[in-house]
């Protein structure tokens, strides 16, 4: 019983732990076949080695082919549960620790000695698992996509919008977040015209502009149209964010770009509250901030496109903003440094948004093509329309909040 209770760790029961072929004498003393020389031929051990397949001298490992390294881990783990007889039970398992040469470091590589056939089988299995039964054409299509991407064989529009990348990568990666995490519910999708320009005006909240991304996903999935966001210039100064935003179809929030997009018949999204809305404290949730200078209204008036109000409930709770570090924010040139109950205290974990329930409602479109041509230069009209849009969104927000049972419901 005494020598059978050795539980092999690390070297899978074989003596020695260094690089050499010759284990230390202490290690040899610990091994079951202690009396033998480690490089001795198999089958002569006292532990039994009478099994036919073990009479072969184990010298060239590569000659042993596929079978050689595989049983090794299984015998090691099988011996683990503590059946003492198992270690001595050499002939049953086709390799006993005693009958093998000392392990070298080369053999300890996790991928060492896995035969090519196994690799191919694993690959085919994996491919069938990921792409289904029709994995070959699926994989070919996937490769063709990647090939097209890396040879630059795709088109972007004047604003840098990469439709293929947005649909197949950006929206696809945001979709689970929208559907599973925030359980997005979009109402009034029929208000979005099937073609032609329209301006979606939304409230803004949530410390980082997740609401914009979620609106883009939701509206694209329901109407098939891409929301082209008008983003603050901070977005285009940040490395990484800048190139992604352009590829996702965003452009700078200036009247030139807004009008160019609307004239081009795009569905444009704007968040007129800007940083005032997104960075407002949690106590002020669902209170609409000032709607900029109404530039979005004059852009819509000039191009004669309808304004569609969008009210988003749920984004306020994802990162409840309880504090700010204005000095640091000024130093870094950002509008605010958010402090939430979890950030920065929990580090990266604090960046996980809370799974609030989101309700999005698109309102009745406000027509702008009924005004006379010079209407965009009439400040009073612009203010009136701005207030109308703002009031609509605020009222819809209150209705949606009444309807929502709980924040996470």
């Amino acid at each position, binding site marked *: 019983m005494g020598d059978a209770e050795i539980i092999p760790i690390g070297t899978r029961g074989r003596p020695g732990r260094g690089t050499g072929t010759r284990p230390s004498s202490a290690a040899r003393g610990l091994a079951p076949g202690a009396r033998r020389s480690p490089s001795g031929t198999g089958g002569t051990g006292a532990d039994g080695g009478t099994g036919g397949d073990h009479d072969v001298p184990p010298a060239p490992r590569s000659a042993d082919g596929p079978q050689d390294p595989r049983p090794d881990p299984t015998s090691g783990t099988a011996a683990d549960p503590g059946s003492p007889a198992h270690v001595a039970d050499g002939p049953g398992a086709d390799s006993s620790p005693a009958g093998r040469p000392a392990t070298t470091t080369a053999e300890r590589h996790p991928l060492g000695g896995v035969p090519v056939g196994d690799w191919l089988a694993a690959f085919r299995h994996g491919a069938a698992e990921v792409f289904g039964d029709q994995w070959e*054409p699926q994989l070919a299509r996937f490769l063709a996509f990647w090939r097209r991407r890396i*040879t*630059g064989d795709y088109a972007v529009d004047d604003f840098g919008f990469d439709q293929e990348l947005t649909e197949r990568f950006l929206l696809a990666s945001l979709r689970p977040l929208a559907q599973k995490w925030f359980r997005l519910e979009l109402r009034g999708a029929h208000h979005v015209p099937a073609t032609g320009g329209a301006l979606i005006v939304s409230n803004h909240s949530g410390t980082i502009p997740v609401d914009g991304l979620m609106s883009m996903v939701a509206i694209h999935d329901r109407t098939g149209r891409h929301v082209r966001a008008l983003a603050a210039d901070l977005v285009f100064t940040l490395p990484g964010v800048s190139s992604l935003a352009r590829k996702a179809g965003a452009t*700078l929030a200036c009247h030139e770009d807004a009008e*160019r997009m609307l004239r081009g018949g795009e569905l444009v999204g704007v968040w007129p509250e800007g940083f005032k809305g997104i960075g407002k404290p949690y106590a002020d949730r669902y209170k609409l901030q000032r709607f900029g200078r109404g530039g979005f209204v004059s852009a819509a008036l000039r191009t004669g496109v309808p304004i569609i109000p969008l009210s988003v409930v749920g984004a306020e709770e994802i990162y409840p903003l309880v504090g700010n570090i204005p000095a640091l924010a000024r130093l870094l040139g950002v509008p605010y440094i958010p402090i939430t109950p979890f950030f920065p205290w929990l580090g990266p974990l604090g960046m996980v948004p809370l799974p609030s329930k989101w309700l999005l409602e698109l309102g009745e479109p406000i027509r702008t093509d009924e005004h006379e041509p010079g209407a965009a230069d009439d400040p009073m009209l612009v203010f009136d329309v701005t207030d109308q849009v703002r009031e609509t969104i605020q009222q819809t927000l209150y209705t949606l909040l009444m309807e929502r049972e709980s924040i996470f419901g």
Partner: protein
Amino acid sequence: MAETDTGRVVLVTGVSRDLARRCGRALAEDPGVRRVIGVDVAPPTGDVGAMSFVRADVRSPVIAKVVAAEDVDTVVHLGVIATPGGAGGRSTMKEHNVLGTMQLLAACQRSPQVRRLVVKSTTTVYGSSSRDPAMFTEDMEPRRVPRSGYAKDVVEIEGYVRGFARRRPDCTVTTLRCANVVGPHVRSPFTSYLRLPVVPRVAGFDPRLQVLHEDDLQAAVVHAVARALPGTFNVAGAGVLPLSQVLRRLRRPSVPMPAMAVGRLGSLTDQVRISDFSPELLALLTHGRGVDTTAMRDVLGFEPRWTSATTVADFATTLSPTGGHLERVLGSLSDRLPPVPPSPRPARPALAAVAPTAAGGEGRG
């Protein structure tokens, strides 16, 4: 149309450079042009065709004598240089650009025969910043006024040209703001950047680029000389390409690095004369630029033959690819698979014959 019965006499500046020389040659072949006189301090390095060359410095009053003696009625100013190149340092370049233009305009103003002036400017005057609109039209001002280098020179030159247009209302002044000229023969900071075997990129930014083919530059100049249409026009190929896409199409591997490191590297490569990273180029490679060419099409009536994409494709034919290894690996992989059903795009039909056997072989493996 023509002022004289026998056609126009055109003076072209800056012909020691390749682009201007080619423009001069193309002008000389134009039937409405009687004579083309190329002017520069250094002789042109290639074939000048029917153009005659006069060695004169635009920075000196000699140019006025040339204008008067040759009865020049059309002046094409292509002598604004983006790089000091062989000319010397930055101060020489500035002198050449700004003082040369002033001298030339003074000569034009003095000569009553001059009726047309065509100036090749550049879209660099719009600058590049994060606050730029996606597409600049001709009436937009740069968001950040360039304070140094080539861009500043061009802003000043355009100012002098506008002043000349005011003082000589009888003279038709056409300013062509050309996008970055790209083509097999073009040697500019931008093309030598693209010719680098491994291209440094500003990390985290993918600028939108719009380019103009060298043939279209020639055609635009000839067009502007033939039609006398006053005004400023953006001249660029249709469409924009992000830098990443340009590099992929050129099969050029790229290394993203912080903007400062790209600038540092630029000054290093500048010293060994591989490539020259001016601040304007660095800004362009960070924020990109797009220009609206509606006026070029509708008012000037010029339609470039090359789009930005085909220009890059043409440029790629003269480059030996240094990258594209991943593409070849993927290509060989997809050769082993059955042909793609033509759902997203018609796939390579040539592979149809080979594919089944190859796939079968792998399947057995």
